[in-house]
């Protein structure tokens, strides 16, 4: 195993440790979605997916 892999694993491990308490806090304290909220989130995300697919096809 080379140093890049070990370094990447350490960096990702650090990120996981850093983000875990924040994720737990967010899960507990995020407000509930109102009707239409998920649709308003998914539609632009689908557009992003389509745009990325177009770029991948063009390149």
């Amino acid at each position: 195993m080379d140093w890049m892999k070990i370094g990447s694993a350490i960096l990702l491990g650090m990120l996981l440790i850093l983000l875990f308490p924040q994720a737990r806090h967010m899960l507990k304290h995020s407000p509930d979605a109102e009707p239409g909220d998920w649709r308003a989130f998914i539609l632009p995300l689908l557009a992003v997916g389509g745009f990325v697919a177009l770029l991948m096809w063009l390149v």
Partner: protein
Amino acid sequence: MATILSNSRSQTGVLATNKLLRNTYMLLSMTLLFSALTATASVFMQMPPITYLLSLGGAMLLMWLALPRTANSSAGLAVVFAITGLMGFGLGPILNNYLSLANGPQIIATALGGTGVIFLGLSGYALTTRRDFSFLGGFLFVGLLVVLGAALLNIFLAIPAMSLALSAAIVMLMSGFILYDTSRMVNGGVDNYIVATVQLYVNIFNLFISLLHLLGFASND
């Protein structure tokens, strides 16, 4: 009388939000230019691959230790430029990898343009609709943890298809984070432009890296 007071309070809120948005986007554009400069320097200096890890590690430490202590002072500006400069410098070895490919410059330019279009499109959407995306907080952070865990696993498994799926997932997650972070500026979740700039910069950085990976795969190189 109560109506006048309420109107004046809401006007103050709108002014504060506009100031936050103006300062954030101004600082973000300056930091993006600065990181482009450091990335160019890193490319010309032909930095070794370990530079990427060291730069990201240093930037993470600054975000973790220095940013919370300095975000409310002018020293925070120096910290933001140090973070974004380091992250830009870390891009050098990756860009050199792509530049060595036959259509490398085209892949990099497409990834850069694509990142710009996605960021501007999603920011424009969140700013014009003024919709509150704070309900996404838990979903996005748990999604990020899952992706990071899978990426950690894939360091040892080294499955190319999984690496590709992770890049696609990161593009989607960062798009969600752009909506979330922008709506937090509009709807009062964040009131510090230094913190807001770093959050948006990290989203753009991750989006660019993942798009670069996907486009590199798509061009069969």
